[in-house]
């Protein structure tokens, strides 16, 4: 594990939405959606952190909190170890210059009425200065534009600058969205499911591009997805989110190959796997017997939020919320099964990868 200060970190990040759309100035403050509850994250330069979890687990909310788009209910966001200042336009702009976000849906994140040139020019003018100090314009702007498009492999740039979003393919649009984020020369890219709306064949191009940016420019990337296989492939570390809480975190390979938390196991077992000739994945899911649905975020169950669906759950799980417990160096799980507590559940060692059963995970 790198010991350098993370460029962006979150401690105890919490976000509660008012229930019922929050538009009514109602007198029922108690009703809140606990979208994100005490999440810790660290983003390091030149590393990709994947956040996986099922729909509604709070992944996007985390990203938007980190991007400063919605106010934080609790916890801190640290930029270079110092508390990030988001209040005020100047501070906010200084912040977004370093932390940029890519939205999930390339079809929605570009304004259909503006050509590529407008979208990128705005980003450039907002964040870059001319060498002489003034607002970027003229030839210098043009050069920056070209350079930006080339960075996302949209060459020749002239073919794309004057196109409208609807004239571009999904992959091209997503590249424009990335280019916009890169215009600020950010140190952190928050990519909220950047490929989920894209086709399998295009996905790869975008992921490779992100990996390339990480490697070439040393950008820290937060990669949000619910496709756990792509997390394995692409991310250095992976954090598993469930119902707004971190369930497990560790390096991607071991999280995907030897999941510790029962939820991670469920997730991995559920993922379709063509190599799983024996159907062990399906069998595992059946064995886990985890019917049921994610918990209500308005009244989250006390204790471990996964307890209602967890086959191993004990009274301890149902009564007390587990902290993240470091199981092996660099790997932790929020499961009582890895604690020394009385009445802890026996989560055993369910591995879904027959080829990799030998890997050990200290219990």
């Amino acid at each position, binding site marked *: 594990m790198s010991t350098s200060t993370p460029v962006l970190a979150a401690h105890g990040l919490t976000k509660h939405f008012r229930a019922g*759309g929050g538009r*009514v100035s109602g007198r029922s403050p108690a009703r809140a959606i606990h979208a994100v509850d005490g999440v810790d994250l660290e983003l390091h330069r030149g590393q990709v952190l994947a956040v996986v979890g099922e729909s509604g687990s709070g992944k996007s909310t985390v990203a938007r909190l980190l991007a400063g788009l919605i106010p934080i209910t609790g916890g801190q966001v640290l930029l270079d170890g110092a508390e990030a200042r988001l209040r005020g336009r100047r501070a906010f702009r200084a912040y977004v210059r370093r932390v940029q976000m890519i939205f999930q849906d390339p079809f929605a994140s570009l304004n259909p009425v503006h050509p590529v040139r407008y979208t990128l020019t705005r980003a450039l003018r907002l964040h870059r200065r001319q060498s002489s100090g003034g607002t970027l314009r003229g030839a210098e702007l043009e050069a920056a534009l070209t350079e930006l498009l080339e960075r996302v492999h949209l060459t020749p740039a002239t073919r794309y600058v004057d196109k409208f979003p609807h004239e571009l393919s999904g992959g091209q649009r997503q590249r424009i969205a990335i280019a916009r984020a890169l215009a600020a020369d950010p140190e952190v890219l928050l990519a909220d499911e950047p490929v989920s709306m894209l086709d399998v064949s295009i996905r790869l191009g975008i992921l490779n591009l992100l990996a390339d940016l990480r490697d070439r420019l040393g950008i820290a990337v937060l990669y949000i997805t619910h496709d756990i296989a792509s997390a394995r492939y692409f991310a250095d570390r992976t954090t598993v989110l469930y119902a707004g809480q971190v369930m497990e975190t560790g390096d991607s390979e071991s999280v995907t190959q030897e999941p510790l938390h029962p939820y991670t196991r469920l997730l991995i077992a559920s993922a379709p796997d063509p190599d799983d000739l024996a159907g062990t994945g399906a069998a595992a899911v059946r064995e886990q017997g985890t019917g049921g649905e994610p918990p209500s975020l308005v009244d989250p169950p006390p204790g471990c939020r996964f307890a209602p669906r967890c086959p191993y759950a004990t009274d301890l799980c149902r009564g007390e919320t587990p902290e993240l417990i470091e199981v092996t160096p660099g790997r932790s799980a929020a499961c009582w099964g890895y604690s020394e507590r009385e009445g802890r559940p026996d989560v055993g060692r369910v591995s879904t990868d027959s080829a990799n059963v030998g890997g050990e995970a200290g219990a």
Partner: protein
Amino acid sequence: MRFLLRRIVFYALTAWAAITINFFIPRMLPGDPVTALLGRMQGRIDSNAEHSLRVLFGLDQDTSMWQQYLDYWGLLLRGDLGLSFTHFPTPVADIVSQSLPWTVGLVGVATIIAFVIGSLIGTFLGWRRGTWADGLLPVATFFQAVPYFWLGLITIAVLSVNLGWFPSSGSYDRGLVPAVSGEFIGSVVYYGFLPALTVVLSSVAGWVLGMRNMMVTVSSEDYVTVAHAKGLPERQVMLGYAARNAVLPQVSSFALSLGFVVGGTLIMEMVFSYQGIGYTLYQAVSTHDYPLMQGCFLVITLSVLVANMVADLAYTLLDPRTRTEDR
């Protein structure tokens, strides 16, 4: 039921605003009922009598606007709308209650007929779009754009004066005294037919167009395709699935369009010499009969509000989503 509660607060607010606007508008602007009245009498009143009229109408005392406003509220709460200037000394409430039922009856029936017919035609056009039925659209737009009074007057000229099929004015045979008798009701229907027809003719097009558009949108919704896929009879798909959902926005705009409808009424009543509230308002406006003006406007607004509430209620019944909105 938060939804309804919110609506009720809104209605209360609107009612308050209407009442206040209603009070201030006529008073903030220049003009004087007595001179207007004298003018209307065109020499029948000696000009020396002007002063006596002022005394009569209580226009000579200088109470502050605020005091008048408070008094106004006090009276309103007691159901007292004041005395009409022009029909002095008849209470405004009497005039209003004499004319309101006619408007509500005629316009209500005509509007509902127009809504139903328009929605049915619109359903059909939307369902059969791309066929000859689309040819009806230009006709609809034309009728939508025809000035109401023009339509009314031409109808009178043709159906009433030339062909003599319908009476040209009045709300029932002038020889009859209102009573719950077949003869009287028949007469009301007979006299109301032409005005109702023109109201329907001129407003039906709007519903047709609105409903058609909604049908086009709704019939490409997945659940309509599913209904087809389920092999349901076409009529059931068209009415039960597509029209049933397409009518929802229509209902809410029906509520909001009532304001426009009432505007149309005013003209209709003028053209057909119908004894409704719209014409009374117009008369009051042209004679600066403040109390009557206020009374009419207030009652019209409140009726529209009530109709809105009814439509809202209907909407809530039709659309289960609103019922549980914030449960």
